[in-house]
């Protein structure tokens, strides 16, 4: 980690987005993670994605559980409210926050210990409920803060730094999210910013439960020979099914693509996801086919990345519940309190 304070003055020529903000306006406190930690790259990708989308920083709520990954919301979007909650229980806190104010953008940050071990139940149920959010698991397959224990996403056969071999089956969060009804599911790698930034942008625009499993090597405890979550291993085995561009409004098409090599998916908010196919015949709107494909490639020892599944027209918890359009936290006495006349009628019925 760095101890140098960040200068408050910005270079006058730094590029600005539609709101007039520079990327620096989307930064947070200085990271206290290890130098080279994959998580810091993900924070940088979040900053880049929010800046590019011209999201008002204060309209984002950042929520996390406990762990290295859950510390990171302090390191981006300093003008947003953040909540470092309870280990494994961020999904419930995020669900409640979302119910209170449907107008904010919810960003849940978690780790593999937080989501796949202690919090697997809450992970499952937030996906089932279709909470409108972007849920990122910074997946390094290891417990960092407690110094190197296997996590539930460690692959069977993967070797720990001190030599122990994991004999338990790994939990596949991507497979679970798809099976449980998440309407946007992606996997990426913290070392591939070009892939990760558009995925985060697309997820932020997605009006339903969006999940990104981001493999993020732990340089301190899981970046050695024999680990399946090291930089080298992931680079060698990474098989991207597509490359994504997120197109807002009517941006002109600047690149030429060979016919049949591009799929476009228009999301509910009007944004267009342009997918350059890398795997032939991969259709990210076909959930069952996507699940089969993932199982096949996994058996072949590959780590499939890219936008794996998207439902272009998702519903969310508020739609399912039928709540009012006005955020519940803005309703006042007049809307909420039925008053004494209604109470008199209730009393009368109880006599």
């Amino acid at each position, binding site marked *: 980690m760095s101890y140098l304070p960040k200068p408050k003055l910005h270079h006058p020529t730094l590029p600005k987005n539609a709101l007039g903000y520079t990327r620096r306006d989307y930064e947070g*406190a200085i990271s206290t993670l290890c130098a080279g930690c994959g998580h810091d790259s993900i924070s940088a990708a979040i900053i880049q994605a929010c800046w590019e989308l011209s999201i*008002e*920083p*204060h*309209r984002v*709520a950042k*929520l996390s559980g406990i762990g290295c990954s859950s510390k990171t*919301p*302090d390191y981006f979007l*300093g*003008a*947003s*409210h*953040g*909540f*470092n*909650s*309870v280990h494994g*229980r961020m*999904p*419930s*806190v*995020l*669900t*409640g*926050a*979302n*119910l*209170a*104010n449907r*107008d*904010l953008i919810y960003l849940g940050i978690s780790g593999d210990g937080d989501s796949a071990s202690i919090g697997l*139940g*809450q992970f*499952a*149920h937030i996906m089932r*409920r279709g909470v409108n959010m972007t849920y990122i698991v910074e997946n390094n397959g290891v417990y960092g803060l407690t110094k190197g224990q296997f996590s539930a996403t460690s692959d069977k056969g993967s070797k720990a730094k001190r030599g122990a071999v994991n004999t338990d089956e790994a939990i596949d969060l991507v497979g679970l999210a798809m099976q449980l009804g998440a309407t946007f599911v992606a996997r990426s790698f913290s070392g591939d910013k070009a892939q990760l930034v558009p995925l985060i942008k697309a997820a932020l625009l997605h009006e339903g439960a969006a999940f990104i499993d981001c493999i993020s090597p732990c340089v301190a405890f899981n970046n050695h020979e024999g680990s399946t979550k090291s930089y080298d291993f992931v680079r060698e085995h990474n098989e991207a099914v597509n490359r994504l561009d997120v197109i807002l409004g009517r941006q002109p098409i600047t690149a030429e693509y060979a016919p049949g090599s591009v799929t476009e998916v228009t999301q509910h908010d009007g944004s267009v996801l342009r997918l350059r196919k890398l795997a032939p015949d991969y259709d990210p709107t076909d959930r069952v086919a996507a699940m089969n494909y993932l199982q096949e490639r996994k058996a072949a020892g590959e780590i499939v990345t890219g936008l794996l599944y998207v439902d272009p027209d998702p519903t969310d918890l*508020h739609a399912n*519940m*039928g*709540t*009012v*359009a006005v955020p*519940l*936290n803005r*309703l*006042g*006495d007049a*809307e*909420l*309190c*039925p*008053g*004494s006349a*209604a*109470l008199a009628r*209730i*009393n009368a019925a*109880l*006599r």
Partner: protein
Amino acid sequence: MRALTATNDFVVKFANVNGSGSASANTLFAKSILRMGIPIASRNIFPSNIQGLPTWFEVRVSGEGHLGRRGGVDLMVAMNPQTWDRDVAEIEPGGYLLYDSTKPLPKSKFREDVNVIGVPLTEMCNAAYTDARQRQLMKNIMYVGALSALLQIDPAVVETLLGEQYKGKERLAQSNRDAFHMGRDWALRNLECPIGLRLSALDAVGERIFVDGNSAAALGAVYGGATVCAWYPITPSTSLAEAFERYCRRLRMDPETGKKRFAIVQAEDELASIGIVVGAAWNGARAFTATSGPGISLMQEFVGLAYFAEIPAVIFDVQRAGPSTGMPTRTQQADILAAAYASHGDTKHILLFPEDPHECFTMGADAFDLADRFQTPVFVMLDLDIGMNDWLCEPFRWDDARRMDRGKVMTAEELEAGKTFGRYLDVDGDGIPYRTYPGTHPSKGAFFTRGTSRDRFARYTEQGSAYVDNMQRLLRKFETAKAYVPRPVERRAAQPTRDGVIYYGSSSAAMREALGALEADGIHLDALRVRAFPFHDDVMDFIARHDRVFVVEQNRDAQLRTLLTIEGCVDPARLVPILHYDGTPITARFIRAAIADKASALNVVPLRKAMP
């Protein structure tokens, strides 16, 4: 043989089989007495079971208005062969036994000192109905008919009630009326009516209402402005969340769009329930959960976070006995300490103790103001007896001029005007800092919420001095709360006394009755009903004014007494525990006997006087 005689003062108990449809007939019986202007107290005693196990319904008729459980049974309606022997054994000598005489029973099944009233209910039903379910259900209405003749219930009242109950379903109303009269007519023709126990119309109910505490608390949450409810089913709190949904569907739909001004999540467990509450409240909505003891255990970690991160949360704890199944369908006040000091680290929480459904409503609404004002969890401590039984209580009242107290929330305008914002900064000296809702202002007022490791401006720090500073402020905040929570209610004895009694929650009705009886015994007690924790100064003052104070509770470990001892540094020897914890609601008879016993045992007579 002796036959009990009493007018408007007796106990009727119904022994039924769970799932046999007896509940609505029994409620009809209870309500018809109320409509005659005679106060009653009714209680369900039910098993952890959907169908087949024994269940009892007890109605205490009390013209004098005693609403606690009395104990003992004057008339047993024994409809369950499974529990026959113990039901018969429970009847007071000279009491009455009403049973289905279709099948003859050997003489050994009865008691010499009990008046037996046989009504051939099954036989009449089989003759009147062909459908099996109808035969079962109408049997219940039929015994209400027989009871109306035996006890002198006004049949017109019953007819009116049936009309209200089956409004718009005239055929159903008529068939119930027919069954009622079949039972009534048979009794009038074949039995000596009335028996020694009689009802005589009074005007002692007044404007009071008859309602269960869980419904009342849920209605309090509606009036208190709660918009988010997250819960997990657990007896005896389930009906609270269900009542909230019922009332919201009636009172909280947007009239123009038909959309909901509320959100209810039946969560995957209690951890998620409280997590949703904390998230919603952090984001500026009023949120609550309803649970019972085991749920409180599961919520501990989040309750601690909410305490340290200073997030409002309302938790309705409908207390019951023990873990697992069985005793959990019985009542207790056994979560006092678990709730008062819930979670890890140094924590203390606000508790409210409603005595009846009327206070469940009032405190149910007040809890949201307190939670927002103090930015902390607030527990409303109901129990199964209040929560799941219908109680006769004062009607609900609401002042239309009342507005929600959202506490110290800094607005975008105040931030824009340059007001200093420190999330954990004690600006006013009362220990309560300002908070902001997420999304308030583009560049001011955002902060990062975490447990303990931060300074007054919510910046991360692991310094011990910042931690101590914060913990001291939290204590100041708790001290401030003393003046805001409901004050205790004192009732002075008829003559000056050095003895006092402290009681709370569902023990109150029985306690009030016991006070009258004890006075007749020559035991004079000043009585204080505690309504909240932290304890108001009046509570410690009351203890200081008395040499010894009995503390009446429904748990084994004298939990409120422990709390008083710790928080008030009271000499434990001066607080005498009176404890009832077998799962049945406490009775005036029990309190009277226990206090009389302790009072005489503790009365030290000077040696010289004791010598002849």
